[in-house]
């Protein structure tokens, strides 16, 4: 029962792994399963997303670098994952264009293609309140992939867009038929239509067969299962850009808040991991929706002193960037935390700075505060939730 529950049993593997037995007594004395058609995970490694009814979160504390395995990419959808037949799929582009057009998936793939690695992050990516929270629970609504597709500008060029156009509407083919209004300049800058993820066809949960990719912008604007683009001279004020993805800033409500501000978090050590006295390599992720990460600082004394961490290269624009910092822990209780600075000079703020800037009724969107971990004398690590 144990084995059937946690084993990714392929037919080849099943032959060798007895029910209830995860290993053989001595693997050097018994040939294993032969080469297969599709690889497996070790039965000892069971990374999973943490699902709720509306989202599921990447297990960032269990990951080792900047690529999120495609099947662990966070999910946020508003009416489930649609089952789309790629042979029926069409993308319609119309509105302020010389020639409205529709493109099959095959058409999209024929255009000059580009590949870029960048993060996607849900604008509502922050939870707090308890000490026993994992990175996944705090901000697991961000993941990174190597995306391949066609530049949106390549398609717009094909249709001859009216130069007076200022916005476009992107619409999904899911049961929420989700829509967002996007300023045209993003199309001319770096917007893509992605049909591949981490080398293979994009996964259904990430928008199969094609999605909008707006590097660095609110996850919700990266419309999945993209079926239609309408080019316009005004935004549409859809439900997802008025009732949702807006937030109080003092006495006003801010909308069309596209760029994701710079952010970082220590993923090791973090709850529920445990550490031992001595040398510890502190590790984590940093990113910015506005460009490159240029610096990550780590404090191991509750913010009194800050130390510059090493960045794993190549450091890419609008991309999760892995950082590492070597620390000798003397066994005393302390707090560790990280803060990132991006190429625009923006440094990740504290919760207090965010509240000072936006007021007390700060809401749940675009929350990127410095988050601290308490390292206890016994080596356990607890989240330090802050009131807001």
């Amino acid at each position, binding site marked *: 029962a144990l084995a059937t529950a946690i084993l990714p049993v392929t037919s080849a593997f099943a032959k060798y792994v007895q029910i209830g037995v995860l290993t053989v007594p001595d693997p050097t004395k018994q040939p294993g399963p032969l080469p297969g058609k599709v690889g497996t995970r070790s039965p000892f490694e069971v990374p999973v997303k943490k699902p709720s009814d509306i989202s599921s979160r990447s297990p960032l504390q269990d990951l080792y670098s900047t690529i999120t395995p495609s099947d662990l990419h966070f999910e946020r959808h508003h009416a489930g994952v649609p089952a789309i037949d790629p042979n029926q799929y069409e993308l319609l582009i119309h509105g302020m264009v010389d020639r409205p057009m529709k493109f099959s998936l095959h058409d999209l793939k024929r255009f000059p293609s580009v590949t870029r690695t960048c993060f996607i992050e849900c604008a509502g990516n922050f939870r707090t309140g308890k000490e026993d929270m994992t990175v996944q629970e705090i901000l697991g609504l961000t993941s990174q992939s190597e995306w391949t597709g066609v530049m949106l500008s390549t398609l717009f060029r094909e249709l001859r867009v009216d130069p007076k156009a200022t916005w476009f509407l992107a*619409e999904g083919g899911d049961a929420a038929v989700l829509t967002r209004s996007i300023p045209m300049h993003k199309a001319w800058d770096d917007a893509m239509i992605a049909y591949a993820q981490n080398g293979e066809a994009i996964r259904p949960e990430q928008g199969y067969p094609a999605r909008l990719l707006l590097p660095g912008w609110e996850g919700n604007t990266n419309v999945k299962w993209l079926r239609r683009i309408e080019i316009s001279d005004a935004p549409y004020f859809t439900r997802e850009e008025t009732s949702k993805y807006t937030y109080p800033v003092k006495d006003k409500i801010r909308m069309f*808040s596209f760029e994701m501000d710079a952010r970082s978090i220590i993923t090791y050590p973090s709850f529920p991991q445990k550490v031992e006295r001595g040398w510890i390599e502190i590790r984590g992720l940093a990113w910015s929706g506005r460009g490159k990460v240029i610096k990550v600082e780590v404090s191991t004394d509750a913010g009194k002193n800050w130390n510059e961490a090493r960045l794993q290269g190549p450091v890419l624009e609008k991309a999760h960037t892995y950082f590492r910092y070597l620390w000798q822990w003397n066994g005393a209780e302390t707090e560790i935390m990280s803060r990132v600075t991006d190429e625009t000079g923006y440094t990740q703020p504290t919760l207090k700075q965010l509240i000072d800037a936006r007021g007390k009724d700060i809401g749940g969107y675009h929350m990127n505060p410095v988050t601290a971990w308490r390292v206890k004398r016994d080596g356990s690590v607890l989240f330090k939730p802050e009131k807001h």
Partner: protein
Amino acid sequence: PVKTEPQWPKTFGYGKTATQQEIAKLDIDVRPDGKGLPAGSGNVPNGAIIYANKCAACHAADGKEIKGVKLPGPPLVIGDGKTKTIGNYWPYATTLFDYVRRAMPYNAPGSLTNDEVYSLCAWLLNQNKITTASQVMNAHTLPQVKMPAQKLFIVDNRKGGPEVK
């Protein structure tokens, strides 16, 4: 002799022209200026009946938050508390038509007629104390509804750079 890649052609020639009919089938969006609203109309009494039949199960009979109860859908009608609803948070009434027609009821999206959606808008706007019980909703009246929250909304005023905003 080594050459480099040719210049891009004026057009690659992939894809097909979309007909007006094909566009009309998908073009369901509605803008605050009323662009996209279809013919038809609806009123509050009809809206009340449709709401009771197709919406109340998830959004409560009166559309209001019920303390201590987690309904399948969010509250839609302004109540006592500060919960964000149509009445105190939505900047444009056209968004209501657009969203309900495309996404509701959650279990059968895209199943409502245009008249039904107009009626639901009439009822929801009236329940939220924005319009009167006799106000008919159609392509002409809906964009004219002035939403209380509209004045609160500002476009992103972050400027990039070092400032925390």
